């Protein structure tokens, strides 16, 4: 089994608080992998370590077998790992079409081209438009991002990450805050992601997790507690204990 993303004994502490302890996570190519854990288990810290926002105290991160531990965040994105954010991180002042086009331009390393106007890059603009179409955002292509309804913004959040055609996609609670009747849209988008993309889903919503993931890792107190197929994890007494120790399943 070839790995898309791997961490080796990753550690990170903030002062006396060990947020990540010896985490060794393996995500296969084309995986549908979920990372769950109670609040404060260190999920966000782990994502920040993977994407390079934080530097680990020890351990390594490998993307497609190459060590990327020392690489800057933007280089990791260029190497094929993109992410969405739990709290929308969109470009106020840009339109959805521009936001998606930006990611495509960077994928092609066109970002420093300064002579030809955006529109003359027809291939890129068409691809951006097609992507918005797929996400049901075509009619909002020119609406300023800030004025989109929250559910649409959530979709755009994923569209921008997908536009980079990643090998590894990190989805940080994609359905967070989305009302019940709009969740199916997010769900179908997530399920319809290309099969060769390894998806690591960080989620509280257990319905989403169990309908999507073929493999689940459970993070508790900064370390990996259990990893396995969904039914194994669901039946594991240690997982139950970890969750029951806290609030009921989100």
């Amino acid at each position, binding site marked *: 089994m070839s790995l898309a993303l791997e961490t080796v004994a990753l550690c990170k502490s903030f002062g006396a608080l060990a947020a990540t302890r010896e985490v060794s996570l393996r995500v296969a190519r084309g995986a549908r992998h979920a990372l769950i854990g109670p609040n404060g288990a260190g999920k966000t810290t782990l994502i920040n370590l993977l*994407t390079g*926002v934080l530097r680990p105290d020890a351990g390594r991160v490998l993307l497609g077998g190459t060590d990327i531990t020392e690489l*800057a*965040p*933007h*280089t990791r*994105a*260029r190497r094929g790992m*993109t*992410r969405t*954010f739990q709290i929308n*991180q*969109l*470009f*106020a*002042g*840009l339109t959805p079409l*521009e*936001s998606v*086009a*930006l*990611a495509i*331009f*960077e*994928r092609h390393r*066109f*970002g*420093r*081209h*300064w*002579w*030809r*106007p*955006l*529109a*003359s*890059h*027809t291939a890129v*603009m*068409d691809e951006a*438009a097609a992507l918005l179409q797929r996400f049901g955002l075509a009619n909002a*292509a*020119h609406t300023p991002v800030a004025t989109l309804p929250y559910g649409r913004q959530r979709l755009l959040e994923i569209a*921008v*990450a997908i*536009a*980079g055609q990643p090998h590894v996609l990190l989805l940080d609670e994609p359905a967070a805050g989305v009302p019940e009747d709009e969740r199916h849209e997010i769900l179908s988008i997530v399920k319809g992601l290309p099969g060769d993309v390894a998806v690591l889903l960080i989620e509280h919503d257990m319905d989403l997790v169990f309908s999507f993931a073929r493999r689940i890792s459970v993070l508790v107190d900064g370390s990996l507690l259990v990893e396995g197929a969904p039914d194994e994890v669901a039946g594991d007494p240690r997982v139950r204990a970890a969750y029951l120790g806290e609030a009921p399943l989100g």
Partner: protein
Amino acid sequence: MAADWVRRIAVNHREWVFWIVAIALPLLFPGKLLLINEIAILALFALSLDLLLGYAGIISLGHAAFFGVGAYAAGLLAKHGLAEPLVGLLLSAAAAAVLGFLTSFLVLRGSDLTRLMVTMGIGLMLLELANRFDTITGGADGLQGVVMAPLLGLFAFDLAGRTACAYSMAILLVLFLLARRLVRSPFGLSLRAVKANRLRAVSVGVPADTRLVTIYTIAAAYAGAAGALLAQTTQFVSLDVLDFHRSADVLLVLVLGGSGYLYGGLIGAAIFKVMQDWLAAQTPQYWQFWIGLLLVVIVLAGRERVAVAIRRRWTALTRRFAGEPTP
């Protein structure tokens, strides 16, 4: 959708009207050529700040540093034998660009506050330098003996300012068109993305630092070109080109016209200079007070609202001339 985009980048009617009016101004007011020259130079300077503030979100309190370096470079080149204006302009802009490139690394990191301190500090440092090395710069007396060769070997710089005015306007137009290309390109898009949300821009692969260094360098070159134009067309450079006031004034100019659409600096420069021309005639000494009051009032009234009002008035005016239907 593609057609929609083509429409968005083509030079629209209103832009044509703007430039026709701009080019007609010297013909309409032949007695005000020196003022129009100054407006063009200030407009170029403000355009340079717009690239930084409007497109990359970098606040600067010391943009005069690059203006001043450009001015002294142009003045010194001419004084020491290189009197060809265009070559001098190019070299001066390059000198400012080098300074911009070197100092950009200090501006990259840190908050707005550190940027304020660093940009202001660099500006003051250069002023101090120019003051100390008065054997080179002429110090407080200014750089004397700047003599320019005729432009393109054909047009001598005259006292009425005909050549000066045409020269500055032409350079402004060329550099404006270049900037217009720049901000509408993928590069410009990535700048706006970094300004809007640096974290996200980086996570789709935008090398934010590299982009900021690039635009800072380009903006410095533009400011340097503006300074060079001032030195060449007035054939004099004084310490005043590096003064803090110049940095503050250009901020005001940009705020007057509105930032982030390139024309703001140009419109702001015209308003500012005409106002200065008028007010300075009334109370030459206390011009500064009115600038201050204007800043305070603009901010309290809402910067956006003032700029939008000015822009709307402008749009209505040019629409009428362009024969477009008013909505």
